[in-house]
């Protein structure tokens, strides 16, 4: 176990297709409400997109300088800051922003190409660069709250947010920071990007009768991933500071593991994820048996779910079948660079509530996926001491986070 200061999770914020607050998000996870629908501009593809009313949150002037992903980030950050009951002047030099995004301001990039290639339009927006830069979300959070410590962005595909949270955890534990706003945001549902994902042939075939059920992690009839969008933000701070502020600490971030496959750009290995899970457990000073729930990466690609199952079995051995494992992506889609944040939040809320969100749309047993996936129905009144959240990225990076109940040793 790594020595250092204890790190508390004291605030949560979510923007997603199944709710623009953490409680609403978790309620919908538990009840199995899916945010997946056919895209309005491309009905052969389903995605978990958000009916986001920007004007409810920002002025027109603000919106000229905020790409959709940064809007999501600011809204989720505001909820997390409120949830943590941070005072107005909480920011200082020992406060940082640790953020993740796979693509940054993709909407700004795409609309600039559209303008550039349209002979009728002479101009590209002068805001394009500051809207599109990957660190725009982190920068806008630090601007809004006057945060003068590090304002960082990790762009590591689908592990971006998990790594941002893990690195913030290390910075606080090791004494470099006292508090961090950590998480990730992604808004990649642009026509050009959807075409690119379709070309890659990894997206789920839309279910003709029930498009909302198109994403089926670990089920034999799964056909691929479903894209989502949104943001997840956590407030992390030392347990000591949280208690000094009068907060009752219920959750600690306990461990972080980070490895690379070094084998293939997109095809996952079982060894890399297994090593990351082992590293996170060692970091937390826990035996595998301490984990009471795993929020899986579970993208619902035919190979990914088999490989993750195999990795979990490598780490947890004969105990693997006893641990509830679920993929909540069936409902909120794959939030790419933000997925590690919203899914870690789902795991933290499961830990706090004793309710394990199910893997929805699970209908057929896959002999190669033989764990307890909490099929379709929430499991309540479960005593959980610690939870794990997995995020595996294109490029081969594997990030694993562990949270534990603050009362647990």
């Amino acid at each position, binding site marked *: 176990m790594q020595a250092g200061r204890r790190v508390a999770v004291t605030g949560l914020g979510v923007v997603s297709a199944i709710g623009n607050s953490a409680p609403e998000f978790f309620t919908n996870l538990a009840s199995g409400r899916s945010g997946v629908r056919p895209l309005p501009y491309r009905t052969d593809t389903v995605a978990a997109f958000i009916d986001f009313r920007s004007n409810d949150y920002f*002025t*027109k*002037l603000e919106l*000229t*300088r905020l790409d959709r992903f940064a809007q999501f980030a600011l809204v989720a950050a505001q909820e997390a800051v409120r949830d943590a009951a941070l005072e107005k002047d909480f920011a200082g030099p020992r406060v940082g922003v640790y953020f993740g995004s796979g693509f940054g301001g993709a909407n700004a990039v795409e609309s600039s190409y559209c303008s550039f290639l349209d002979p009728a339009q*002479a*101009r590209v*927006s*002068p*805001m394009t660069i*500051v809207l599109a830069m990957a660190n725009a979300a982190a920068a806008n959070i630090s601007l809004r709250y006057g945060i003068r410590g590090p304002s960082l962005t990790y762009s590591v595909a689908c592990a971006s947010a998990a790594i941002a949270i893990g690195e913030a955890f290390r910075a606080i534990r090791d004494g470099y920071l006292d508090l961090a706003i950590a998480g990730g945001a992604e808004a990649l549902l642009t026509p050009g990007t959807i075409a690119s994902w379709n070309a890659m042939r990894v997206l789920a075939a839309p279910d003709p009768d029930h498009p909302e059920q198109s994403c089926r992690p670990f089920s034999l009839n799964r056909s691929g991933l479903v894209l989502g969008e949104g943001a997840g933000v956590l407030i992390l701070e030392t347990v000591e500071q949280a208690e000094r502020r009068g907060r009752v600490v219920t959750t600690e971030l306990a461990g972080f593991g980070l490895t690379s496959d070094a084998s293939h750009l997109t095809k996952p290995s079982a060894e890399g994820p297994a090593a990351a899970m082992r590293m996170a457990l060692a970091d937390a000073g826990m035996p595998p048996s301490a984990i009471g729930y795993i929020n899986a990466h579970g993208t619902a690609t035919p190979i990914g779910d088999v490989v993750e199952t195999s990795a979990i079995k490598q780490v947890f051995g004969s105990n693997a079948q006893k641990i509830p494992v679920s993929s909540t992506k069936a409902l909120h889609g794959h939030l790419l660079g933000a997925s590690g944040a919203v899914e870690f939040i789902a795991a933290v809320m499961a830990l706090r509530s004793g309710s394990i969100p199910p893997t929805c749309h699970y209908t057929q047993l896959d002999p190669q996926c033989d764990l307890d996936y909490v099929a379709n129905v929430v499991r309540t009144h479960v005593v959980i001491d610690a939870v794990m959240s997995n995020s595996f990225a294109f490029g081969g990076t594997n990030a694993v986070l562990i949270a534990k109940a603050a009362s647990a040793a």
Partner: protein
Amino acid sequence: MTADSRPTKLNDMSAILEKMREVLAKHFGIDDSSITMESTLESLGLDSLAFIEYTFELEKVLHIVLPDLPRDMVTVGDLAQVVDSEVRRQTQGAVA
């Protein structure tokens, strides 16, 4: 027919100012009838990038092309002078 597409005779500065107010309201949500020629761009919340975007919008609405503008423009009036002379030069004072 919307207000924007109605032919307007922009033969005086008050009509130019009105158009400039319209774009501020529509594009930036800055809706303030108290904006005058003396109002500073900074006081309206337009920084240097927003200023460039503002000029692009004015070009679109007024069907003109603005020249490279000096960087030391301070007031709405500074910009209005240039817009006015370009409107006269490029559209003979009538814009669709």
